[in-house]
């Protein structure tokens, strides 16, 4: 089943500022990295994409086999901090959310076994979320986000506070998911990883969203080696970038 995810000229307000011109089109297998300075509005865009924050203008559309599908049926969301029941075990969390998505117990158990194995969480199955380390919580959150087999996976700062090996582990896992046909959108400060693993990009700078083509154009314009070095220059030297 082919999935497509579109954002058309979104404008999203947050407190005193707004992010505008958010437009992109993602197809199955795409991994889009959202980058920007702290407080630039990455999380605001992500919340708008997953439907927990209303945009001022624009449209977000998801297609499955060219058929328009409600977003919440296709999206799996992993917020910046985990979004699980802290006093429930990982297994109980998976079961609760599985049931809320209307999945039968047998399927839940099968998927639970699969994702716990893939995310190396089998040993943590019976542990309460508050008893898990930060890395485990992040993986647990990812596992719960995937229990209903979403085609679009959106993650807000999934690598914050994780060591390099764990970051690599998750990147590879996400890469596998993309290869299996999912769309991945994530926000991060890991520019090198973005360069390495993502094929689509989103830059939020001074209230504007810049898509993959615009970034690539800017890389050429500023004669940077690659996107990573462009972004590094941009963020470190406070480069003034205008369309």
């Amino acid at each position, binding site marked *: 089943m082919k999935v497509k995810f579109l954002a058309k000229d979104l404008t999203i*307000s*947050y407190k005193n500022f707004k992010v505008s011109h958010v437009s992109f089109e993602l197809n199955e297998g795409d991994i889009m990295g959202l980058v920007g300075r702290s407080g630039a509005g990455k999380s605001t865009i992500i919340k708008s994409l*997953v*439907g*927990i*924050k*209303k945009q001022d203008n624009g449209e977000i559309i998801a297609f499955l086999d060219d058929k328009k599908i*409600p977003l*919440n*049926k296709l*999206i799996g*969301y992993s*917020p910046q*901090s*985990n*979004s*699980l*029941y*802290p*006093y*429930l075990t990982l297994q*109980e*969390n998976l*079961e*609760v*959310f599985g*049931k*809320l*998505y*209307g999945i039968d117990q047998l399927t839940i158990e099968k998927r639970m076994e699969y994702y716990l194995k893939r995310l190396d969480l089998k040993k943590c199955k019976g542990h*309460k979320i508050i008893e898990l380390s930060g890395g485990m919580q992040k993986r647990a959150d990812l596992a*719960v*986000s995937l229990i209903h087999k979403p085609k679009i996976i959106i993650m807000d700062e999934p690598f914050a506070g994780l060591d390099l090996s764990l970051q690599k582990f998750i990147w590879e896992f996400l890469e596998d998911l993309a290869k299996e046909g999912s769309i991945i959108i994530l926000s991060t400060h890991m520019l090198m990883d973005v360069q390495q693993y993502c094929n689509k990009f989103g830059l939020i700078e001074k209230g504007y969203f810049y898509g993959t083509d615009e970034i690539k154009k800017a890389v050429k314009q500023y004669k940077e080696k690659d996107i990573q070095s462009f972004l590094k220059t941009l963020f470190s030297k406070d480069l003034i970038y205008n369309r």
Partner: protein
Amino acid sequence: MIRIRTIPLVEASLKGFARNWKSILLLVISPLLFISVIFLSFNPEGLRKIPVGVISNSPAVDMDEFTQITNSFLTISNYGNLDDCVVRLKQYYPYACIDIHGMDPVVVDVYYDNTRDPVIWEVVQNIKRSVDYLQEQKSKEMASDFLNQFSSRKNLVSSFRSNLQETNSNVDTYIYKIDESIVDLREAKTDLSQTIVQMDRDIEEVETEKNRLEHDKNAFYYETTSTLNTLDSAVDSMKMIEDPYYNSMVYMIEQDIAEMRNEVEDYNDEVDDYFDTVELRVAGYKESSNKGKGYVNDIDDNVEELEGTKQDLEDYKEEIDDADAELAQVEEELSEIDKVNPEELINPIVVYNNPVYEPTIAGSKVSDVVKMANLVSLQIMFPKVLLLIVMFLALLISSYLTLQEINSTSNIRINMIEGMFFPEFFSVYISSIIIVIFPILIVLGLGQVLFKLAIIQNFHVILPILLLMVSVFIMMGISIAFLVRKKSITLLVNSFILVFLIFFSGFLQPIEKMRAIFGFFSFISAGNVALSAFNKILFYSQGFVSVLPEIIILGIILFLVMISALLFKKMRDYPFVD
């Protein structure tokens, strides 16, 4: 679908609650401890001993007796004059000053510290009960002579009545004996009559037989005599023939005939004598028979006489019964006087305030009456305490669970799932009910055991009211939490709401003292409606039908509060601008 999604949310909510020791400690164990402390603090024996001052200037009142009957609840200090006592009262030492003065009548002035409301009312009530008791004793003494006189008259009547009843019993015995005698005489008469009849028959038979024999004898005698006469004639004719032999033969025949005649005569005489004897005896028997008949007539006369006597006795007995009934009436009237309250004899108009709800308690002493009054006051307080606990627990726990839910990290994920509006709402409600109901049931148990209220017996009626009331306050808690969303402010608002509800439900400020419009809203408030229903059930064991209006009103309130909670949730739910 709502139900399928609500259950896992309830499970998650309850598990989360149960595994968080802080929530268990603060919202389950602490309330239970507070409730236990509250209930243990109630003294079923009533108020502890309250200090009062007494100024006694009346010789008519026995102060030792007064001290003795109030000893269980008053600590009495004697003062020389009222002013000294009032000075101490204003320094918060005695709760009241009791000034007893005058002779006829004795006046008891109670000066009480009305700033110690509401305890002082119970103290004043207890003092009044003691004075009433003394007053009653006094009235009894005054009326006792009067009653004693009646008592002696009553004893006389009783004694006379007892004698009369004994006489009545004797008359009964006489009548019985007369009856027995009449029966005996009648039996004797029957036996005698039968004997006489038989005797008469025998005499008649004997006479008949005698007459027949006499006739036969006479016939034989005449026939024999005639034959002998014929023979004599023949012999006389034969004497004509003169022949010695023949003459000797005739002579011999003549001799034989003469002998034969003699024999016949003798026999005839002898039989006549015998017949005479028989006649004599028959005459004797007839005389006896006649005498017997005379006896029978005598018996009849005697029986008649006895029956007359019996009738006289029965008439006499009737008179005795009438006299006994009249005496019984007199005795009953005297007994009625015995039952008359001495106070009613002394005071022609007496007012009695009779509380309808009064649980039975053994004993009639002042201490027993005070004990019962204390139990009643605790029982009356119970529904209010129960409601306060329900309000407190339902508001706080539901707010806490709602805030836990909406501020939980998992909430973002839940809100991303389609159709979670109602399941999320009802999961909080159901979880709250489950957590709240446990301590509430413990409170009900304490009410049954400590306050001796009929809770278990009426549980089928209590339960729907309880569930409705708990639901109303849970919905209020949910509404506030959805509206405010922030923990600290929600708890603050809850505190204000609690204080408002306590005052507005008529727990502290009576509804009757409110202005009409506020009084009306207070009257239909959930707390007051539930309180009214609980009072009906717990004190008067009223059934389901009696509390139906309260159930309907609580149902309407629940519906309105639930709608407002849903509106607040809708307003404040995701997506929202943070």
